[in-house]
């Protein structure tokens, strides 16, 4: 736990409010404990500072979702859910996360601009990004290996494992998308070259990037 994790490129807007409420569904807890529980289940992927926990709790109390539950033996002030707090948690778990507004993806935006702004070496951009994304994927996988080596089947470890898998799949999707972009760009380059040379010579020209035309010729010969 608490492993050093490369931060996902786009900080997801984790609903701190709902995370805290659902932890309190388990049992009354105090502020610092809430933070620890949140981080142990998500492996510290989205660090939560304790100030954020207290301000959120204050807001939740104002909205009538939590109330003070007295102090524990060590004098920590604990919180518990109110009736409407329980309802809020139930609603959260039964409502799908909204996917209507695509999160702003810096990479997609960068690539869209790179293919339209003149003078950008898009091929190199893709290659560098793929290499960097692969390194992140290797890091997640290394953490997975470590997590897998521990034999404790605790629920929190399972939760952390699932969070890691989510990061792994997202990084994989990004690399797959980069491969796809590369293939499309090559095809576009070959077509461009084809239209410009068709008038002058047969379409066996070497005007197209050598690499891309090899693929095409190989395919045609089989």
């Amino acid at each position, binding site marked *: 736990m608490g492993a050093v994790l*490369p931060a996902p490129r786009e900080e997801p807007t984790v609903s701190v409010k709902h995370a805290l409420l659902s932890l309190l569904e388990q049992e009354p807890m105090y502020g610092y404990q809430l933070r620890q529980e949140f981080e142990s289940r998500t492996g510290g992927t989205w660090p939560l500072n304790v100030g954020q926990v207290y301000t959120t709790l204050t807001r939740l109390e104002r909205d009538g979702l939590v109330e003070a539950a007295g102090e524990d033996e060590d004098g920590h002030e604990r919180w518990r859910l109110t009736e409407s707090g329980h309802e809020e948690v139930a609603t959260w778990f039964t409502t799908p996360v909204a996917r209507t507004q695509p999160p702003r993806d810096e990479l997609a935006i960068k690539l869209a601009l790179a293919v339209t702004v003149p003078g950008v070496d898009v091929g190199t951009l893709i290659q560098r990004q793929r290499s960097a994304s692969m390194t992140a994927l290797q890091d997640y996988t290394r953490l997975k290996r470590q997590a897998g080596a521990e034999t404790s089947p605790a629920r929190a470890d399972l939760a952390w494992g699932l969070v890691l898998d989510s990061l792994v799949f997202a990084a994989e999707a990004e690399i797959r998308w980069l491969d796809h972009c590369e293939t499309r760009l090559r095809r576009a380059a070959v077509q461009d070259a084809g239209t410009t040379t068709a008038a002058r010579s047969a379409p066996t020209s070497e005007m197209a990037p050598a690499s891309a035309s090899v693929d095409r010729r190989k395919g045609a010969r089989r």
Partner: protein
Amino acid sequence: MSADLGTAALRLLDVHRVHGEGEAQVHALRGVTFAAHPGELVAVMGPSGSGKSTLLTIAGGLDEPSSGVVEVEGVDLTALDRSERARMRRTSVGYVFQGFNLIPALTAVENVALPRELDGVRASRARREAMQALEEVGIAALADRFPDDMSGGQQQRVAIARAVVGERRLVLADEPTGALDSETGEEILRLLRARCDAGAAGVLVTHEARHAAWADRVVFLRDGVVVDESGSAPVEDLLGAGRLG
């Protein structure tokens, strides 16, 4: 085992491979330089037609380069004659393929023992080594089953046992998880990884990033050329680069 980290288990030096002649010529590899060291798992990633399978068959002595040098444990394969190369292939190199390639008429343990028997090892010793290898991949209990009576994941474990039996130090895997579901595929990668952590050198060819990520290094191949490599630079540097693009 880390003592011999200096010598590469596999080294390719400026390897070219050209198929066909004249008009029909296809350059599968164009000057690939590549190494895998004991204790290291290296992934080779690329789309179909990038030359990654050619690289693996050449590394394993199943195909010869048009030019360049291929060394397995310091021995230049191109300088060996046919039978010497076959011997090298049997004793030093283990293969894991996508299709498992087990012999259906032989049991699991017989499949694993076969390459040792071909080496001239006595049957009883070959069987003992095979059992040990099956133990290592966690399926000793299935030793007397035939491949058809095993799941895909179990068959691939047998194939891995066969690839590592008799202390072979170089394991070459071509899409070993291709036919398996993601959970089972991960088990196979875990085994390969464990084998490398125990001192073998591994080369894993795949088009799946998630699988390549189990490697220490990932080499990207495009049209027969190594275009990039990830995992060899300090993590912090690469993470910084990742954020800035």
